[in-house]
């Protein structure tokens, strides 16, 4: 692989930022997030992972889909498609895998999510390989790995005072086109990481549907939505029409889509006020099944990338790896 020093990478990043929207891990008041850095020096290079995954750039917490302008009988509907050309720098392997899951469900399956697809096609992912696994990381157990480049356009592997550049896609090749590397053809030794644990089989998951685990593990759940909102593959949303500021007699309504989560109480509420998933146990089971079972059956991909964010962020320590362990304990003989 070709070698590039950190200094050369920084000047490359500066040139990227001139023509494209550059997102990178940056601290704001002590919280690490993918943001547009004011200065290239603000970019954080050594980190475990940002609080939010790279998902929030491609599938933002809230986005305006349409603006509806009404002036008397005259109604205009304007689509707000975001056409920014972006590069996300410092993407972890688990987040890139998350994008692959989102692609399967939002682009490769009908109906295509036009908004996601546009952003995704216009966003290049430049990865930074993890040198070690974090305390709550388990990517190796769900088919990934800390230096796995799947789903990325370029992967950078730390080497001495710089990085080895693994070009993964043609978009990645384009990004580094014309860059003079500091050294060339350096041997890259792929590191071997062992899985942390074995996952329950799809059959065992199916037969655990009525397990007592769901009640006992969900009892302390606060029904907030942190787990879903920090998850690189959670993609549920709600669409609302909200009044915007009127302008000279023109009434404005905005169609907003925003994240939603099956752990919230109202998520499954239907007409007439009925709620088939009223119990916390049913909601926790749905979320865990969505990660380990439903998406796998629908698309052939596991919707958990082992990033461990839900474990780190849960205020009451609900832990997907602990639940996996309990499911395995319940395996018959």
């Amino acid at each position: 692989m070709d070698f590039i020093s950190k200094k050369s990478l920084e000047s490359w990043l500066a040139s990227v930022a001139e023509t494209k929207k550059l997102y990178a891990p940056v601290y704001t008041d002590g919280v690490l997030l993918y943001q547009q850095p004011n200065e290239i020096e603000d970019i954080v290079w050594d980190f475990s992972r940002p609080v939010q995954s790279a998902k929030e750039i491609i599938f933002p917490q809230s986005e305006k889909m349409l603006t509806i302008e009404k002036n008397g009988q005259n109604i205009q509907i304007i689509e707000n498609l975001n056409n920014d050309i972006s590069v996300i720098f410092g993407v972890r392997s688990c987040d890139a895998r998350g994008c692959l899951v989102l692609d399967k469900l939002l682009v490769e399956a009908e109906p295509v999510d036009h908004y996601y697809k546009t952003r995704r096609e216009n966003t290049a992912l430049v990865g930074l390989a993890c040198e070690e696994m974090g305390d709550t990381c388990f990517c190796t157990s769900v088919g990934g790995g800390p230096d796995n480049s799947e789903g990325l356009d370029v992967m950078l592997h730390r080497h001495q005072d710089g990085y080895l550049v693994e070009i993964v896609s043609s978009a990645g090749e384009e990004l580094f086109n014309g860059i003079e590397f500091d050294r060339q053809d350096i041997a890259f030794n792929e590191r071997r990481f062992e899985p942390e644990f074995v996952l329950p089989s799809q059959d065992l998951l199916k037969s655990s549907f009525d397990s007592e685990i769901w009640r006992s593990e969900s009892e302390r759940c606060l029904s907030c939505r942190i787990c879903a909102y920090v998850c690189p593959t959670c993609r549920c949303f709600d669409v609302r029409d909200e009044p915007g500021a009127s302008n000279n007699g023109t009434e404005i309504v905005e169609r907003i889509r925003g994240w939603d989560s099956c752990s919230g109480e109202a998520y499954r509420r239907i007409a007439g006020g009925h709620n088939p998933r009223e119990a916390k146990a049913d909601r926790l089971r749905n979320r865990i099944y969505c990660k380990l079972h439903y998406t796998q059956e629908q698309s052939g991909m596991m919707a958990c990338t082992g990033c461990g964010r839900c474990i780190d962020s849960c205020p009451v320590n609900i832990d997907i790896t602990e639940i996996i362990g309990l499911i395995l304990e319940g395996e018959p003989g």
Partner: protein
Amino acid sequence: MITKKIQEYASSLLADQVVDCVIGYEVGPRRTTRPIFVDQQADTDRLVWNQNCSHNLTVYLRQKLNDTEGRIGIVVKPCDSKTINVLGAENRIDRDRLHIIGIECEGILEGNVKQNADSGELQRRCLACDLTEPLDMDYMIGGSIERKNLPDNSTSNKLSRWLEKATADDRLEYWLSEFDRCIRCYACRQACPLCDCPTCLFEREDSIWTGSSATTKDNRSFHLGRAFHLAGRCIGCGECQRACPMDINLGELNRVLAREMEEQFHHRAGYTVELSPITTILGEGR
């Protein structure tokens, strides 16, 4: 010591069928302290007490009282007992159905909630706390703690002092930049034992009061609106800030409101079973 006593007492409560369930703390497999619900005598040995017992367990009371017919035992820190007073004054819980196991507390340690605290420093709210025993309880557990940290009103940090002196514009700028990080996960609301409206005003489907977007405008109405609804009621347990994945400084916002309530209305939430003076009471026919 306290752990042992909690376990023994919880066991006797369940054996004598005084309560159906005891809400307390346990330490999970990752050594993280977290809430636990014990309804079998055999599980009482999972109960613990340590200086990471930060969660305000009263957040679970309403649901648990709905789900069961009998009484509920609950491990209560001095600060958390103030919540029970507010919930009682607001007729949100039936005090007679609670069996409060009061814990003498030397303060909870600062630290990233999610993991156990390792800083060795007491939380800011604990430094300013004037209670070592709960205000209301059915059974008290504790030795005689010699309080190392007397109530200290000088705990306001650099930021609080700056906010006190800052102009309205500067304060607004500070708070908007905090709220800007909000992702509307509603963890602050869900972790709050006093924020339990059946339908949250800020999440009504008709979006009359505030939009659902995580934009500066909508985040501002959510957080300021929520703060106003807690003024005179918030007892300062700090769970909102502890739960926030974006580390928004909600504790400071609540402290400012509590100070206003004390200065303007001479009211400190939860010290007695009394409604906040800024609560409007609708009488019959109104």
